[in-house]
């Protein structure tokens, strides 16, 4: 599957730039598998909460705050 390969490649890029590959995941879920979708959505939400905000965005906000001051 090309999409899975592309996601793998993008995960590599995210690691290289320090954002972290764990923020992106590829799941294969059939249309009939609603519980599985909910399970993965919960898993990703928990993961995002644990990882915290994107470090790049924090830096941007810090910079713009500094500029305003």
């Amino acid at each position, binding site marked *: 599957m090309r999409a899975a390969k592309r996601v793998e490649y993008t995960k590599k890029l995210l690691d*290289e730039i320090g954002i972290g590959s764990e923020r992106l995941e590829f799941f294969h879920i059939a249309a009939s598998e609603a519980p599985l979708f909910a399970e993965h959505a919960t898993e990703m939400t928990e993961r995002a909460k644990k990882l915290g905000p994107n470090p790049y965005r924090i830096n941007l906000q810090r910079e713009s705050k500094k500029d305003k001051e």
Partner: protein
Amino acid sequence: MITADRKPFEEIKESVKNYKKIMVLGCETCVAVCQAGGEKEVEILASELRLAFGNEGNKVEVSEELVVRQCDDEFMADPAFLERVKEADIILSIACGVGVQHSCNYFNRVITDKPIRVIPGLNTTFMGANIDVGLWEERCLGCGDCVLEKTGGICPITRCAKSLLNGPCGGSSDGKCEINKDTDCAWHLIVERLEALGELDRIKPVELFKDWRPSHSGGPRKRLREDLRI
């Protein structure tokens, strides 16, 4: 075409870390086709640099530029483009080694009030063909003395690991080369092709030696066409 691979991101980042204005310069010809240095790759690399440096709180300006060919003056002669080149602290060229050298040479020739720093973002690999989607294989070493007419259109200089003129050698097994089971034995292919063409006689005479003088062994080569010069 000339193929290339992007250098590891860490290596690129390290080489540009001391500069505030970075220009990522792509090339729309060979390296765009092999998806190493075209428009999309310029965008990806520039975004990566912005994010990676931004992540560390390092404020850098990363601009994106693309020319049709970095190995030709005429595609870089736009005054507005040259002005932007001049404004950058460093040019990160993602062309092949020819493009990196030529653009560096050209910029420093036409921009006389400031030295222009150009560094490579790719490792140039070989002259090859697009065999399948996402697959390129080496096909020519540019030896300057082509033997393809004798070998059924298969180059033993490039595709035989030993560049044998009289093959195959003892390392050929089931049509594969001893260096790697994924590598076809060039001489096996040559014999098969000539057999199919009914021209096996072509390789009967023993080739005593090859004239390597037109190759790189004679130093960097020049090609001059007097009739094209102004």
